[in-house]
């Protein structure tokens, strides 16, 4: 680890819409982490969606971890994916972007891409409602455990 990397925090971005059922999973897990991890070396954000201006904070981190819900047939199943920046930032113009596109934006704007991970849990419902399904509640602990392991390895 170089001296510069030592001062770069781990960035955790739990995102989603808490008014759309399990879509609020990312924010929920991030809020649990914020209570548990009282470490100035770990920066936790909870936006509703990913936006290009996050690229500055991603570029300034030594590792970025995204937390989200996903569509799937096995509610609560957790997936861990390593994010790679595409060769070129994807030229689609929409009101949300994916972790891969954010990685591409970060590289295009700042010339660097940190180690990036995406942790997702398969959702039960994205209907208009508040609160998570029992399956997603149960999977939060698994996701937190994997994130703490990633943080530990990066220290």
């Amino acid at each position, binding site marked *: 680890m170089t001296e510069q990397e030592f001062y770069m925090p781990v960035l955790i971005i739990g995102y989603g819409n808490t008014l759309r059922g399990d879509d609020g999973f990312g924010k929920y897990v991030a809020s649990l982490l914020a209570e548990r991890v009282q470490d100035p070396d770990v920066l936790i954000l909870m936006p*509703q969606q990913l936006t*290009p*201006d996050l*690229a*500055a904070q991603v570029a300034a981190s030594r590792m970025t971890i995204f937390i989200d819900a996903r569509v799937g047939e096995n509610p609560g199943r957790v997936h861990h994916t390593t994010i790679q920046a595409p060769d*070129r*930032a*994807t*030229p*689609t*113009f*929409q*009101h949300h972007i994916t972790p891969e596109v954010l990685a*591409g*934006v970060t590289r*295009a*704007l*700042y*010339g660097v891409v940190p180690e990036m991970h995406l942790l997702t849990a398969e959702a039960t419902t994205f209907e208009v409602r508040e609160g998570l399904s029992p399956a997603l509640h149960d999977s939060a602990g698994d996701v937190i455990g994997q994130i703490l392991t990633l943080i530990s390895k990066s220290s």
Partner: protein
Amino acid sequence: MTERIVIDPVTRIEGHSKITIQLDETGNVADARFHVTQYRGFERFCVGRPFYEMPGLMGRICGICTISHMLASAQACEAIMSVRVMGTAQKLRKIVNYASLLQSHALAFFHLASPDFLLGMESDPKQRNIFGLMQENPEIARDGVRLRAIGQNIIGLMAGKKVHPDWIVVGGVASPMTEQVRQDIGELLPEAQEIIQRTLGWFKRTLDDYREEVSTFGNFPSKFLSLVNEHEEVLEIYRGRLRMVDDHRNTIADFHRDEYRDFIGEAVEPWSYLKFPYFKPEGYPGGIYRVGPLARLNVIESTGTPMADQELAEFRSRNPLSSFNYHLARLIECLNAVESIQRLIDDPDILNTRVRAHATANVESGVGVSEAPRGTLIHHYDVDENGLMTGANLVVSTTHNNLAMNRGVLQTARRYVDGARLNEGMLNRVEAVIRAFDPCLSCSTHAYNQLSLHFQMVGPDGEVLDDVKRG
């Protein structure tokens, strides 16, 4: 045989629309129209709700102009309560509206419009967007992303949330500014100022390469409408008096917001969901006027801040009637916003904790007005004896520009469209004149659409003669 070209939807704007271009027998442009294909519902579904819910409800019209809508809405409600918000709460509201203007102008200039300047009107449409800009001009793209983030961060610091905050309430604001927030905002401003001045420098040099576009993109005489300060001849973005000037900047009407219906009529056309406001004394469609950054700089005598005034003096030497110069006006307003925020946070009164007045409905009607990033915004509410909404009329910023946008599209199409064969650069220029106005059609309603571009040339019998899809 006459033909019709359809550009549907128009890209890199907020909301959903299309452009149709009618060709005559010889392939020249006979007519061109800008159609807004979204539907507005907010004026209807607010009926029956308590008036004090309106800032929160009406702010949801748009994710970009939330603050301006909430300010106009809160003022209309305060008029119903017969309460005038003064002092610190008014200053806090101004700060957050300047921040809103900053983030919106950064979005319009860097993300939506600058790919045309920096990559070229004729460049590959697959690359002519913010992502292409990141590849080709990462420094400028970085400035754009950062400037928008600074505007959003100021809103977040002031109001608790960057998008759809509930901090602007009827009677004032929900909480006062803390010393920490004042310091945090102060630390953001120097970087914003550097970005804006750097951008002004290269954009003014770039303008020399776009003389033809300056002379053809919505370049025509019209009236201009904006708020002006009630006490000084300076720019105002919150409350103030409404002023209409002619194309020589002579004042032709100066009126209170309660009188807006005496001066502004709203026409309807069957081919668009966007109304066509006009200056009533001159009738429809002769009463064409423009709002927004270009209009504001044409109406006022001074921005009220020194660096922006220096830029304004230079701006006066350029063509003040060309809609292409909306882009330059946007940057000057960004500079004014940063200077104004600095001045407001330096005010010793800004940390005062008395920031809200309380009352109930005392009259049956109220009008509020603010300057949104795209122009003058009017909210007019009627309530019953219990304070429940019985009607609402919104004259949204983009709506004021409807006649002018249509004239701009026609002017640009006549200059660049040459009938027989569709050409990418030609079509992009027709879209680009709309982008100069930075319309926000989402303020009319919300539509869920995957943005793509579909051009069709259709014969009078409905036969598709040419078809180009993008996205």
